[in-house]
């Protein structure tokens, strides 16, 4: 399983929104992440990680990591994963990269939907999304939600736009 890297299940956001109007999902099943468009001379796509933390305490569970998967050599793309400093501390530092079903290439500005693990035990959670951009900023957005039932939404100010769980 060295080179067979599975990308996370990413769906275009729009069809899902449409689907949502037809059948209201009973579970917090997915999160839609918006990467902000930033007009700067030197733009690099941000590294972004998302994870779920139980409010009552316990281990964080990473649900996606987008980084420069392809860059190898003297300075591989993994070098800057520690720039996602909160994710790194909450568990990223002990993950083996790339991770099947979790890691993928960096994304251009836009909205992306990622599945939230269906096997989360019932309870209160916070979903966190952290973005760090080369020569740019870093931002952490928290979205409280619960299993089963309730989703939620929050917005970043710089690197990240709206993060919606539904």
């Amino acid at each position, binding site marked *: 399983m060295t080179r067979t890297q599975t990308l996370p299940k990413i769906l275009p956001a729009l069809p899902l929104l449409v689907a949502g109007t037809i059948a209201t999902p009973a579970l917090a099943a997915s999160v839609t992440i918006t990467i902000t468009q930033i007009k700067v001379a030197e733009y690099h796509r941000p590294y972004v990680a998302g994870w779920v933390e139980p409010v009552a305490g316990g281990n964080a569970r990473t649900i996606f990591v987008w980084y420069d998967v392809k860059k190898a050599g*003297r300075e*591989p793309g993994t*070098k*800057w*994963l*520690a720039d996602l400093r*909160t994710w*790194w*501390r909450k568990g990223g*530092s002990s993950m083996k990269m790339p991770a099947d079903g979790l890691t993928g290439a960096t994304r251009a500005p836009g909205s992306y939907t990622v599945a939230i693990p269906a096997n989360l035990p019932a309870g209160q959670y916070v979903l966190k999304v952290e973005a760090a951009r080369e020569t740019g900023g870093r931002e952490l957005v928290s979205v409280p939600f619960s299993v089963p039932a309730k989703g939620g939404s929050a917005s970043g100010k710089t690197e990240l736009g709206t993060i919606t769980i539904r």
Partner: protein
Amino acid sequence: MRFRTFLIAAAVSSALATPALAHRMWLLPSTTTLAGTSEYVTVDAAVSNDLFYPDHMALDPAQVSVWAPDGSEGKVENPSKGRYRGTFDVAIDKPGTWKIGMNRSSIGGTFKVGAEQWRVGGRGRPAGPPGAPGAGGSGAGGPGAGRPGGPGGPGGQPPRMVATVADIPANATDIKLSESLTSYAIYVSSDAPTKGVLTPTGKGLEFDPITHPDALVSDEEASFRFLIDGKPAAGVKVTLIPGGKKYREAEDGQELTTGADGVLRIKWPVAGMYWMSASAEDNKPSDKRAQTRRMSFSSTLEVVAP
């Protein structure tokens, strides 16, 4: 823990032994957190008043040791000693937490020969041992050493001083000696932090952190325990100073003391690099010739913004 005995410049020695003095010794890593095992950390080493502003004295990288997470010895690479600052690199090529720093032990103090006061170690150049010069090494002056003969030297007031305890002559009286144990360590982690290099040895004043030193966040309280001879040490005085004083009005240092459980709970006023220095004194020197023991442990800690 290997305690090395160094004969070092007196200014450094006094800064180490008594952290209350303004001159502070420091190591400043370029980072404390790395991803992967193909990275380097580069470290500045100096002695200065303000942190981390090298404007006084370089620290020689030759004094620095490196402990890898698996207990093996790491390497100091590209050492260089500039006017104000030493620098060196360490290849962080194994996952886990590395320790970079130094342990020193020395004995200093005073004694009398007749009415004259002599010093052991300390500032200035040794004037040669009282009586026969230290050529005898273990001979320690020998019984016939008699009256200190060292100074006949150049004009002025030559210091009456011997370099080491072994040079104290047999006819010395009023011997007052203090053992000094000094440790400085920084911690750098590649991938997940580990605690191997933080395992206490049960000797002297030791840092036994509850919060890992490479997982400090400005909005989270940190807990550090200090041990003396392996037991939680109450009443250890700890100075904590954020770097970059020149960019604000005050030094903003904190003077803290460990509780009965030997634990210190720290709130960080800002994110950044901090200089921490803990010190304690007792009368349990490991060296029988000394009456007191002064211990210090210092570190540079990186506290990130949340």
